């Protein structure tokens, strides 16, 4: 063997050893998340859920090629895949595969994620850890959750296609792994045990015996979404009081012109959610067409935690006499006004944790046919329902989101940044080069 062949052979052996080392390093990789909020690390709850996946899961991510969410979706799913190799994903441009988007029930315009295991399909609307993990959790449940819409007391109807009906809500729930069924609490006041959650959507007639039936259901680790409305005079406070919640009659008027619909202060828009509820972060803006106030009276019950979800601005108030709208400090309540709040009552019964969750909104219209598909109303409803219903280990999933770090830029500062970055720094290089050139010429 010539000397060169020996060198070549040893080089090939070294390269093979390097390839082996690379393989080994990837097998025992470790990540250090240097971000301040650990925003690049999946939460412990997600890790727990992902590790429970034992069958292959395919995630189809539908985003247009230029959509900035496509990159973040790929990064996020890569983290899921690194946790569990049974999760595989593909990125699809819906414009190039409209039939596939339709088959999986993904809106080709807005995109989304379809999560499949065998024939079971779940969808997630946004490429966030919260939505993705919720979809996986629903997938692991193996069957759609049963949500019951109460009826018999003038509530919104899942069969009504009118503006105040709930047919759109039923479709939305079906797309998100929930099966909506109507239960009549007029003929039987007991909530069937098959209901994993109930929705009480603006009863306009007194609940009567149904109120105690709902109360018993909630006391036995029930889950409920209560949607009140200024249009109804039914008092739901007795039902809500054990959970540290209440409703204050009136109509909320928002006086900040940036936070209500044009010329309609009775339609407040919630842009940011200052809430400790885990699903509140990154919720899109939603609006409430005519809402009353939610209160959170102090109730000392062991294991109870109550948190507001959506608040209006300090310039808003609760108007007690909507026919003569002007703030009267004697009767009206100054803002900020809470429009939605959630309560979690956990207790240990015979060695098992039992949890009641109640989410109450001061408005029903945002979830009705007329307004559900406006702004982020549908996302708000689904997230609230997810929080109320999905298993305990998931409900605390709150993605470690990066903090918003605004850059205070004025025209002058932009010019300064451009001048420094694209002028001074390259200029110094040119000056240095000119100096070297001059020094060489002078020798």
């Amino acid at each position: 063997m010539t000397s060169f062949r020996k060198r070549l052979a040893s080089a090939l052996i070294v390269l093979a050893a390097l390839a082996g080392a690379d393989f080994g390093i990837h097998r025992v990789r470790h990540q250090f998340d240097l971000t301040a909020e650990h925003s690049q690390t999946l939460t412990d709850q997600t890790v727990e859920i992902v590790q429970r996946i034992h069958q292959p899961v395919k995630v189809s991510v539908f985003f247009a090629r230029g959509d900035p969410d496509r990159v973040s979706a790929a990064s996020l799913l890569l983290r899921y895949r690194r946790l569990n190799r049974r999760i595989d994903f593909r990125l699809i441009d819906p414009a190039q595969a409209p039939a596939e988007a339709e088959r999986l029930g993904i809106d080709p315009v807005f995109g989304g994620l379809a999560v499949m295991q065998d024939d079971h399909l779940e969808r997630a609307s946004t490429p966030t850890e919260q939505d993705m993990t919720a979809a996986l959790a629903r997938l692991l449940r193996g069957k759609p959750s049963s949500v019951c819409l109460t009826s018999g007391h003038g509530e919104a109807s899942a069969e009504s296609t009118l503006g105040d009906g709930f047919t759109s809500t039923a479709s939305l729930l079906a797309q998100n792994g929930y099966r909506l069924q109507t239960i009549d609490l007029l003929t039987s006041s007991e909530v069937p045990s098959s209901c994993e959650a109930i929705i009480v959507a603006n009863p306009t007639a007194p609940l009567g015996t149904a109120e105690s039936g709902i109360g018993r259901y909630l006391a036995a680790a029930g889950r409920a979404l209560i949607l009140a409305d200024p249009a109804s005079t039914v008092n739901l406070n007795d039902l809500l009081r054990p959970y540290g919640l209440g409703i204050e009659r009136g109509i909320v008027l928002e006086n900040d012109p940036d936070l209500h619909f044009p010329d309609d202060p009775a339609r407040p828009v919630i842009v940011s959610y200052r809430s400790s509820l885990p699903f509140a972060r990154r919720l899109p803006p939603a609006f409430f067409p005519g809402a009353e106030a939610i209160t959170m009276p102090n109730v000392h019950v062991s294991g109870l935690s109550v948190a507001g979800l959506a608040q209006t601005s300090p310039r808003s108030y609760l108007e007690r006499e909507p026919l003569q709208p002007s703030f009267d400090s004697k009767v009206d309540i100054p803002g900020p006004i809470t429009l939605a709040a959630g309560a979690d009552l956990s207790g240990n019964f015979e060695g098992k944790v039992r949890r009641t969750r109640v989410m109450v909104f001061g408005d029903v219209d945002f979830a009705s046919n007329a307004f559900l598909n406006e702004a982020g109303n549908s996302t708000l409803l689904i997230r609230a329902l997810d929080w109320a219903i999905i298993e305990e280990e998931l409900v605390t999933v709150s993605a470690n989101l990066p903090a918003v770090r605004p850059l205070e830029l004025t025209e002058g500062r932009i010019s300064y940044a451009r001048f420094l970055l694209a002028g001074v720094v390259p200029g110094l290089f040119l000056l240095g080069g000119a100096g070297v050139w001059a020094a060489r010429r002078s020798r």
Partner: protein
Amino acid sequence: MTLAIARKDLAVLWASPIPWVAGAFFHFVLGLLYASELVARRQALIQPLFPLAGFLLLIIVPILTMRSFAEEARSGTLDLLQAVPVDTRSLIVGKWVATWITALVALAPSGAAVIVLVLFGNPDPGPIVSGYLGLALMAAALAAIGVFASSVTSSQPVAAVIAFFISLILWFAHVGSQTIVTGSFLAHFSISERLRSFAAGIIDTADVGFLLILSIAALVAAATAVDARRLR
């Protein structure tokens, strides 16, 4: 011996107009593009700087490395160098260290972007540290690829073009694989995907290992090419 070679190459390189002009070009384009990103996002984010700087490194590092061996081979000084008892490893590593340091020095003034962020906002220091570590490791790999390209030809432009194309292929290795199935073989070699991870604020031992191994592999290939020339 390695340090002596690195010192001599550094002196030769910085006495030429190449790093000055390449540095000016690098920062002019980077400054314009990054300032546009800041205006569009209005967030104190360093993250957009790294892919821009990474792509520009693909262009300037081959220019910095093209003369490592090609110029010495063309002028005949390589034969002289190989006549003295200098082992190939020291020769390769010395030239690589010189170009890597040059690339780092050319890269360093991009820290002005951090000054802008600190003056007008409150940036997260984590991604700044990890992103610059990623750029430094990527510059090391690109410099090694450049040294390899320079070792296989005696023409500087050809060496630069070879290095640029190898780097470009590695940069875009993930494209295509992402639209089919993840975790494909090609995506593994994507240096832009590795840089993205660093830019996001993550130091992944697999990414660090990959870039170091890529550098070593390119240097081993360069040593083999130089040996082939010596033994010819």
